[in-house]
């Protein structure tokens, strides 16, 4: 057990790409936590997708031993958290398990939207905050300006910020000293009191089952203990107790203030509830932790196998992934057009993409992804509220009293030059401006927006109209009624349920027209002409016609060509598998998602 006064638990908060992972690498490296030959970049990002996309998806921890200038050796526990808005819940939960944060700001960029969102979460968790200005090796860095900005915008003292380059290693020793000197040790904690530990996160390991990340508050965790999860009521016997260095390393016990993992033959991640209190069966604590709010999926879409025969494989893949990700939900869905698949719920679009990528990559399945939709609250005339996850399930409008949609508060930081474009984009997406302030030459705009308008390609559009200079963050604020209708898309006079969507009535015509135009580009020409229509109820509001293909014939075909052409036909047949048949029309799988992309 470690002396509590020698423990420092902290996290690093930063906007994406400001250098969080690189700093973590340096801290690990400088303290010799990992042998030099095992060191690799972005050490804490374990998943392929994390490394490839340069994002952190799962919270990770590492225990670092640091001999400080005061002659004592400290135990530093770093929790690395995701930076993307989709995973804001991960950040907030991890924050509860530590007492301080390093606020990393790229000294060439300054404060960004996620810097704000994350630092506010840290402040809510009562963290002591040490500002760290990174990338001072770059000529474009402006530490003084950024220090001022931190003080102005965030309102914390930043004159004694650490100036570092996580890349070259400059200033890292100062960061380590600041962690020890400026961050507090764990507050409470009585080793002799009944066990009280916080379930911070859990992940699935194919060999060990569920590995639970814990923070001990009172008491001691030991192998062989019989534990109870106070919220779920599950009881287990602890198999292993250990810490991440960052490799899993068993230790005898974990005492108050310590962070580590346990395994206890838990079968699925779903059996663990983040924020739950872990205690012993025999001597339980009588003051369980308040717990976290569970994360709820906000974006839903259908995932269907391109090849119908692969439905069972898809089920298998989804079930396996769900074992490791309790925030992702699924239920079976049947579509007239696409056959059997799953309606899945995600924390956001990135989360959706990550899961879809993993299914395709790790399980070798090809998927059709249908239009993402948010959860609408449909109030029928009988006074009941129905959660609508799928526009296809929309009740008869005659029975509908009103429809409410989720709204968000979006915070966007953008250089002055692009402000006009951002305001236009928000306005186009039915936004209501709440605030507009300046921090130096950057504007901070706050908008109330329908989540529906943001979910799909808002972030891409924002990036593109601001040449990548804007940053964006949001939180869901609640539900509000609006004039929403279900728009159907008919291809060759047949409704394609997988393309149905909810839209605001005032924007239905323009949205319908865009969809029809897009589909006209995305669907290859057929041997006959194909009308493509958007309709509300029975009324067509937009129409395009895909003209018939006129020519597809081999000019020259003699004896030897029979064999060649036959092979070509077989290839074509394989290509056709990537399309879905709707009546007589083949629609390519990418069309379902690409049809939604708006040019403005």
């Amino acid at each position, binding site marked *: 057990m470690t002396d509590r006064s020698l423990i420092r638990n902290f996290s690093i908060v930063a906007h994406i790409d400001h250098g969080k992972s690189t700093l973590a690498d340096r801290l690990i490296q400088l303290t010799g936590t990992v042998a030099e030959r095992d060191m690799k970049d972005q050490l804490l990002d374990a998943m392929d997708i994390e490394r490839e996309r340069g994002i952190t998806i799962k919270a990770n921890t590492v225990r670092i031993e640091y001999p400080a200038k005061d002659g004592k050796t400290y135990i530093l526990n770093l929790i690395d958290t995701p930076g993307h808005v989709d995973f804001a819940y991960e950040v907030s939960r991890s924050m509860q398990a530590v007492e301080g944060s390093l606020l990393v700001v790229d000294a060439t960029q300054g404060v960004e939207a996620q810097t704000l969102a994350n630092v506010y979460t840290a402040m809510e968790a009562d963290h002591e905050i040490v500002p760290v200005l990174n990338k001072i090796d770059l000529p474009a860095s402006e530490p003084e300006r950024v220090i001022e900005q931190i003080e102005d915008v965030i309102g914390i003292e930043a004159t004694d910020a650490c100036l570092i380059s996580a890349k070259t290693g400059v200033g890292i020793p100062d960061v380590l000293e600041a962690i020890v000197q400026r961050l507090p040790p764990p507050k409470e904690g009585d080793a002799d009191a009944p066990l009280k530990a916080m379930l911070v996160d859990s992940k699935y390991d194919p060999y060990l089952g569920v590995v639970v990340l814990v923070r001990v508050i009172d008491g001691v965790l030991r192998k062989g203990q019989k534990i109870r999860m106070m919220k779920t009521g599950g009881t287990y016997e602890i198999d292993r107790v250990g810490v991440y260095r960052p490799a899993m390393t068993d230790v005898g016990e974990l005492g108050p203030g310590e962070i580590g993992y346990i395994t206890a033959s838990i079968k699925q991640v779903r059996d663990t509830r983040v924020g739950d209190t872990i205690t012993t069966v025999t001597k339980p604590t009588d003051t369980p932790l308040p717990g976290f709010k569970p994360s709820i999926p906000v974006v839903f879409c259908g995932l269907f196998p391109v090849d119908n025969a692969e439905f069972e494989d898809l089920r298998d893949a989804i079930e396996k992934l769900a074992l490791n990700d309790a925030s992702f939900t699924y239920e079976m869905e049947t579509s007239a057009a696409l056959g059997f698949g799953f309606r899945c719920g995600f924390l956001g679009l990135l989360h959706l993409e990550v899961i879809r990528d993993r299914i395709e990559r790790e399980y070798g399945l090809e998927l059709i992804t249908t239009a993402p939709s948010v959860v609408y609250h449909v109030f029928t005339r009988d006074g009941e509220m129905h959660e609508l996850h799928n526009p296809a399930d929309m009740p008869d409008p005659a029975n509908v009293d009103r429809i409410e949609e989720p709204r968000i508060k979006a915070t966007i930081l953008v250089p002055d030059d692009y402000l006009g474009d951002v305001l236009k984009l928000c306005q186009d997406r039915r936004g209501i401006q709440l605030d507009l302030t300046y921090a130096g030459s950057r504007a901070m705009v706050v908008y109330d927006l329908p989540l529906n308008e943001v979910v799909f390609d808002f972030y891409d559009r924002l990036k593109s109209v601001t040449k990548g200079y804007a940053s964006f963050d949001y939180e869901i604020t609640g539900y509000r009624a609006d004039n929403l209708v279900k728009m159907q898309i008919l291809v060759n006079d047949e409704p394609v349920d997988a393309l149905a969507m909810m839209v605001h009535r005032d924007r239905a015509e323009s949205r319908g027209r865009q969809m029809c135009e897009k589909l006209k580009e995305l669907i290859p020409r057929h041997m006959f002409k194909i009308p493509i229509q958007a309709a509300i109820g029975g009324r067509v509001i937009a129409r395009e016609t895909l003209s018939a293909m006129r020519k597809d014939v081999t000019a020259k075909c003699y004896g*030897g060509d*029979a064999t060649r052409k036959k092979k070509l036909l077989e290839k074509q047949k394989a290509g056709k598998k990537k399309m879905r048949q709707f009546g007589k029309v083949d629609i390519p799988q990418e069309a379902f998602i690409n049809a939604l992309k708006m040019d403005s």
Partner: protein
Amino acid sequence: MEEGAGFGLYVHWPFCQAKCPYCDFNSHVVTGVDQARWARALAGDVARVAGRTGGRHGGRRLTSVFFGGGTPSLMEPETVAAVMDAARAGWVCANDLEVTLEANPTSVEAGRFGGYRDAGVNRVSLGVQALNDSDLKRLGRLHSAAEARAAFDVARRVFDRVSFDLICARQDQTREAWAAELDEALAMAVDHLSLYQLTIEPGTAFAARQEAGKLRGLPDEDLGADLYEMTVERCEAAGLRLYEVSNFARPGAECRHNLLYWSGGDYAGVGPGAHGRLTLDGRRVATEQVSAPGAWLAGVETAERAHEREEEISVSDQVVEYLLMGLRKREGVALSALSALGDAGASVGERAQALKDVGLLEAVSGRMRATPRGRLLLDRLVAELAG
């Protein structure tokens, strides 16, 4: 497949003076071809295949021979004669045996026409390709338009049956330009024309240029369709009837050998890369010979027949092949030939209905054929029919 399709022999000559940038035929540019050795090898292989098909007592009557390439007009007349001798020795020949040779229209080659006639050739097909020099240059051809016309005149004097090929839908070709050029061609033509729309074949110099974005001015789908429709209209008005997608002839002057391919008949294929289709003991087999000329020659000269692969064609593949080839003909496919192929053939009829409904296919007296609109979409149509 169809009754009375005949029986043919295809002989491939794999050498050319230069490689044209659009061409993906099995053609090679080499110097010092040992003609005597090639003559022995080709003739020997003809004799071997004749033996496999029962020889003069196998009950087959040879109705056509086709020397294709490459550039068969680079063969010495003696080489052609050696092959013809082997063919005549190998099979009983029809009285009206058609013997075609593909020729490039240069003066050198025209000089050999008399020799070819003496060897038994009675029809030539000249690769004229274009009637103006700038387009000939862009197609990478070695001859001028004037030279091609001169070669054509020689051919007409030597042979009764002369056809020539043009490639249309060329870069920057307008409707008007093609109409004028086609009219010129029709004025020249005897009784047969092959008019191919330029196809960018994978692996050719044109394909590489296209990939690099440097092959500009190719017609889009609509212009291609317009050019095609105009071609058919003008040829037919001039009395050259379309009898296959790209082939036009005065009735009776059709190339019998090519019709054999499109009717699903049997033919032997000899020479590098040559394909054959033979019905042997009730099985239909596909033969394919090694493409590389050196390897082919070496293979032929050993006893193991290492230069040829042979594979039985499944019934369902026979159906596909018959559709692929047969629907190219004006008359289309014979329903009797399809139903002779059992269930696989019968199921085509079910799929055909939808295509008839949209006016792409039609049934006429025991046959099923593509409509003019369907003919332009034939590759699609066959893909649908083949299921």
